[in-house]
Structures are given as C-alpha cells and as structure tokens.
C-alpha cells in the first residue's frame, strides 16, 4: 500500500491510494454549509459518492457506497459539527478485480482512502478505520490482499474493516463475505486480517507522520 496525501489542490483533503491491484482517488470537503434537505439539526451530514473506473455508477457502486458510509459514520465525531456537511467523493481508477463478480478490493480501497482524505482535511475522527481483503483458497490457505487470479480461484472472499484505537485493531466495524465458509474459516480469516490491518496501520502512521513533518 502507498498513499499520496494532499493529491488534489482544490479540496480540503485528498489522497491517491495505491495497492498493487487497486487505485482510488478520494476527496473530502468539510465542514461546509449543507443544502437544506441534507441538514441534520445536531450532527454532521455525510454526502458520499463512489464512481466506478469505467462507465456510470450502478447499483454495485451504491452498494459499496452504503458499506463505506456505515463505516465512516461510526468513526466521525459527528456531534462536533451540528448542521454542517462533509462531502466525500471516491473515484476508482483501477478496480483490480473482475467487476461483474467482485467488489471486495474496491470496498477496502474506498474505506482506506476515505479515512486518509478525512485525516488530511482535518475532519474530526474519533478513531481510524482500516479495511483489508482476505481470500480463502480451496485448500484452506488464507491470503491477505489477493490478486485478481487469487480471487477467481478462492472458495470465499472477505473484506474486514477494523476500528483502530491507540494503534491497535480494537473491534470489527464491518465484515463482507462471499462464497462458502465455516465458522472455523471465519476465525482464520479474522486472524489473517488482523495481522494485515496492523501492517496497514504502521504504514498509515508513517504516511501521516511524513505529512505532519512537512508543515
């Protein structure tokens, strides 16, 4: 994973998020004045849109959008900004997976890039959320951050989002699984995902530290 923070000039926060397979540009603007219909009397409203790498957004993108929204809403310090709006736009540049079959790599990249962009924008977050994808092959081996081929050959694929508190994965914010799996498989997947999330968190810290040091 590598992320280029403050990638765009005209938004409050942005990031270009790269994994070996997937690329996403995220932009965050906020807190700004909402339209009357978006306004919430006591908290920050979130406007989120996910745009696919090719073509127009379909129900598939709306599904990713809803999952990302659920995660982001739970880490925002929303009551700090009553009657304000935060806009998040996530543009997928490269899906890295067969779009008609999977959405797990994009979902993970969207969550991570959105968190980077929000941190860059200075929107208050009570914790971080980091997502990883794990593929479980037919022989039972679990691979974190799978490639396109590993996804195709997998028995099941899982995207797990952890809430990171004090530098450690504390609890699970979302888990999105497809395919055939048992309870034992899930536990194995969570184990692998947690290790991967710890690595991600270390890289995240490094990237943010580099940004703070520039100032």
């Amino acid at each position, binding site marked *: 994973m590598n992320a280029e923070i403050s990638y765009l000039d005209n938004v*409050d*926060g942005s990031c270009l998020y790269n994994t070996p397979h997937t690329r996403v540009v995220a932009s965050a*603007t*906020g*807190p*700004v*004045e909402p339209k009357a219909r978006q306004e919430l009397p006591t908290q920050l409203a979130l406007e989120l849109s996910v745009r696919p790498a090719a073509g127009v957004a379909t129900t598939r993108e709306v599904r990713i959008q809803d999952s990302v929204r659920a995660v982001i809403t739970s*880490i925002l*310090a929303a*009551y*700090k*900004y*009553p*009657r*304000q709006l935060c806009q998040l736009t996530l543009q997928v540049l490269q899906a890295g997976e067969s779009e008609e079959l999977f959405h797990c790599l994009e979902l993970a990249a969207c969550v991570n890039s959105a968190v980077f962009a929000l*941190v*860059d*924008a*200075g929107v*208050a*977050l*009570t*914790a*971080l959320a980091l997502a990883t994808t794990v593929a479980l092959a037919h022989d039972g081996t679990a691979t974190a951050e799978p490639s396109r081929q590993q996804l195709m050959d997998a028995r099941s694929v899982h995207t797990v989002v952890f*809430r*990171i*508190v*004090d*530098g450690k994965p504390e609890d699970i914010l979302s888990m999105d699984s497809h395919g055939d799996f048992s309870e034992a498989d899930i536990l194995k997947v969570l184990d692998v995902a947690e290790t991967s999330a710890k690595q991600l968190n270390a890289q*995240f*810290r490094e990237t*943010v*530290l580099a*940004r*703070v040091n*520039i*100032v």
Partner: protein
Amino acid sequence: MTSLVIPGDRISVDPERPVQLGPGMYCDPRTQDIVPVNAGVLHISESKRGQTVYVDYDSKRYTPAVGDLVVGVITGAFADSYRVSLASFSTPVSLSYMAFPNASKKNRPTLVIGDLVYARVCTAEKELEAEIECMDSTTGSESGFGLLENGTVVEVTLGFARHLLFDDAFPLLRLLAQHCKFEIAIGVNGKIWIKTEEVKDTIACYRSIKDCCGKPQEAFEEIIKQHFKTVTNTVEE
C-alpha cells in the same frame, strides 16, 4: 511535552485534575473519554487551573474560534448586520453594524458587497452562527480592524497562516520586506491580504507567499529572489 498523535490514540492526562481541551481534542459525550480527533503534534502543558491539551494540525478549512483574527469578504447586507464569508462554501458569519468604532443607530458603516474586512471573532458557538467585530470591544477603538482597500488576497493553509502571524522568527515577511514596501493583514482563516505600491510587486509577493507555503524555511530566500527577478525582467508591452 510534544508528540505525534493520530485520531483515536490514547493520551495520558491526570484524571484527578481539571483538563482544558483545545483544538483537535474531543470529549466523547457518552463515554467521557478524551481523544485526539486530528492528526498532528500533541501539546500538553500545565497551567494554573489544571492541564491544557491541544493538537497542532494543519488543514485548509477554517472553523471560527473566539479571538481569531480573520480576513473576510462581505457577501450580503441586512437591516442590522453584514453577512461575511471566511472560507468558500463554509457557513457565513455575521458582522453587526454596531461592531464598528463610533457606531450608532444613525451612523451606519458603508461597506458594500465584495469588500474585504479585517476582523476578530467575538462569538463562536458550534450550534449558532459565529459573529465577528471590526473593533477592539474592550476599548472601542479601531485597532487596525476594518475595511481593507485595494491589494490582493492570497489563500494559504491554516498552519502556514498561523506561523506567519504568531511566529516572530518566521523569515518570510522579513525577506519580502527586503524587496518591496507592503501592507499586510494575515487572517488565521488562511486568507492573507497584501498591498504594495506597484502591481509587479503585488504579483511577486502573491507568487512568493503561495510558493513558500509548504516549503522548508531555508528555501524561502531563493523562491522570493526568483519571483522578484521574474517580475523585474518582464517589460510591459
């Protein structure tokens, strides 16, 4: 004590004594936990009344806080106040007609839409519209606030603007002063108004400030020299 924090990190404060939270810190209304909500440098200091905790972080979007000196644009005029924009697309703030020196019911200020003002934030509640004033409300004097005529506005990041305004050792203004005469008003909302005698100097100052934002201090001298050289060598046609 200073260290880097990112949102969600645990910080160590003495729970027995009162804690004052500054920018970048948040007290969760349900759990009463104190957490940093922005990524930046954590400052914990001891004051007479207890501990003060804040996070120094850089961002681009300004949220009003009491006592801040800001540069705003008049965007509307009502029966008893102006509407002022401190950052594009943010909720506007209000500037009462009575918040000017020597103001009275008869004596109205003469600002029009599009004018720039230098002002101080006097109330900033997150649930309410923030208010700014163009005078020192303790003495009632002008103290440098009010209309900013001519000149131009440079938009920079909030951290850079704070350095420029509060850090006396920051070299940028001294270096600019070696090249030209100028008047400057720095708002912590990231807007810097600058006025010089000649257009070419204004252009050079504008480009210099924009370029120095986000660069190390050692690079400032070369950047500024380069921009002034470019404008002096350009002949008007």
